[in-house]
């Protein structure tokens, strides 16, 4: 074979590989560049970057917006922490519904929709997850990122062989060095995820936030599904909220944060700040390992025949019916109602920390869907439109 033909063959192969690379990474590039739009409620006091509380994350992909709603009336303060694990989409969705609809008449409410912003900018390896999901609204629809569980390796790499949690020195899985809900309370000189945890802890300390509600989703094969997980100082409030919700709206369990399980918000925020630390879980088939194709439809409806088989055999920790599934409005509605109830209980137990707040209820979500509570950025006042 002549040198010229050989060169042409290799150039062709190289070109083909580059074309394959560009085409094959279209979704990856789109996800990393996509910005979500949020139309904030009229009561927004300010939007500040998280780095305002700790400059060690400024200029990184972990610097995420914090939305502050201050009634101006003395009372308590609450932080709603959405998106610590972006592949649990009802979490940031709940935060967005709050940001777009909240009314605060006493105390202050802080909302972070994308606590681990970097993780929301990459897909999950190996699970063939869709990069985006679309919520239908009366005026069209809004698209949101699904994302991963851990901080992107583009921001934090390499992983250690074993992640040693600070300050407990407990050994954890290597990938937990990039897991925001394993790195609390964080440290200023740690890795990027630890520094982000530290920034959130600093915000809680400086703003004297009375209650932190970390919003998650759980697989139905995980015992902690449909549960409040609460630091022992918040136990009584969680038990009351759990009883009220289970009696009036939907099944909700509660359990105390184990003292030997380190790095979680419900443990470390309770130990290292004065805030009552609460974590909430909803039933999310999309993140279970034994479901069918992990499609956008599964994420939105939660309907899956394999999950039904598991339910029939008594393998799940939550009620499940594949005809009704576990749709997004159910999961977001649960979080909205769960947060509202636990905030109400804080006011009952500690009147000085009372926060009077309202947002769409569980019944509202079940009747009208999530999209009914998202506003059209095209028609909104430009001052109320933010990008996340």
């Amino acid at each position: 074979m002549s040198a010229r033909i050989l060169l042409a063959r290799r150039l062709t192969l190289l070109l083909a590989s580059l074309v394959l690379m560009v085409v094959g990474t279209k979704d990856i590039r789109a996800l990393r560049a996509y910005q979500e739009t949020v139309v904030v409620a009229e009561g927004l006091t300010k939007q500040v970057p998280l780095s305002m509380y700790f400059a060690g994350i400024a200029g990184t992909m972990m610097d995420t917006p914090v939305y502050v709603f201050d009634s101006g009336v003395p009372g308590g303060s609450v932080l709603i922490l959405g998106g610590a694990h972006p592949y649990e989409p009802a979490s940031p969705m709940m935060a967005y519904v709050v940001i777009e609809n909240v009314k605060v008449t006493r105390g202050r409410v802080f909302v972070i929709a994308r606590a681990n912003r970097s993780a929301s900018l990459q897909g999950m390896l190996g699970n063939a997850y869709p990069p985006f999901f679309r919520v239908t609204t009366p005026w069209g629809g809004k698209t949101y990122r699904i994302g991963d569980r851990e901080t992107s390796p583009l921001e934090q790499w390499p992983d250690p062989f074993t992640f040693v949690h600070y300050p407990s020195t407990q050994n954890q899985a290597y990938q937990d060095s990039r897991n925001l809900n394993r790195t609390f309370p964080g440290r200023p000189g740690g890795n990027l995820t630890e520094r982000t945890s530290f920034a959130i802890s600093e915000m809680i300390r400086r703003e004297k936030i009375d209650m932190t509600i970390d919003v998650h989703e759980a697989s139905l094969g995980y015992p902690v599904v449909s549960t409040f997980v609460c630091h022992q100082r918040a136990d009584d409030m969680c038990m009351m909220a759990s009883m009220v919700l289970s009696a009036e709206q939907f099944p909700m369990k509660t359990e105390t944060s184990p003292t030997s399980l380190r790095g979680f918000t419900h443990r470390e925020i309770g130990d290292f700040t004065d805030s009552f630390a609460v974590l909430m879980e909803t039933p999310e088939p999309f993140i279970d390992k034994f479901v069918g194709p992990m499609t956008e439809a599964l994420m939105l409806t939660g309907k899956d025949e394999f999950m039904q088989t598991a339910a029939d055999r008594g393998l799940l920790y939550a009620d499940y019916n594949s005809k009704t599934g576990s749709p997004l409005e159910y999961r977001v509605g649960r979080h909205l109602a769960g947060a509202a109830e636990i905030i109400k209980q804080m006011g009952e137990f500690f009147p000085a920390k009372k926060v009077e707040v309202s947002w769409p209820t569980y019944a509202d979500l079940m009747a009208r869907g999530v999209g009914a509570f998202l506003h059209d950025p095209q028609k909104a006042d430009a001052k109320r439109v933010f990008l996340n």
Partner: protein
Amino acid sequence: MILLQEIIHQTYFMMSAIIAVLLLTRLFRRKTRPGLAYDIVYAYAIIPFILRALHIK
């Protein structure tokens, strides 16, 4: 500590770029294994290193 982490982190990107260049060179200039199958492997194996060096994946 943060500076050291950043140096190690950036070193990985540089290593990816160096390996991509190395593979590219070997695709066009190598004396052994000149067959089509090896050309395909060299051309294809470059992809993940370019993606990492360009901060895409």
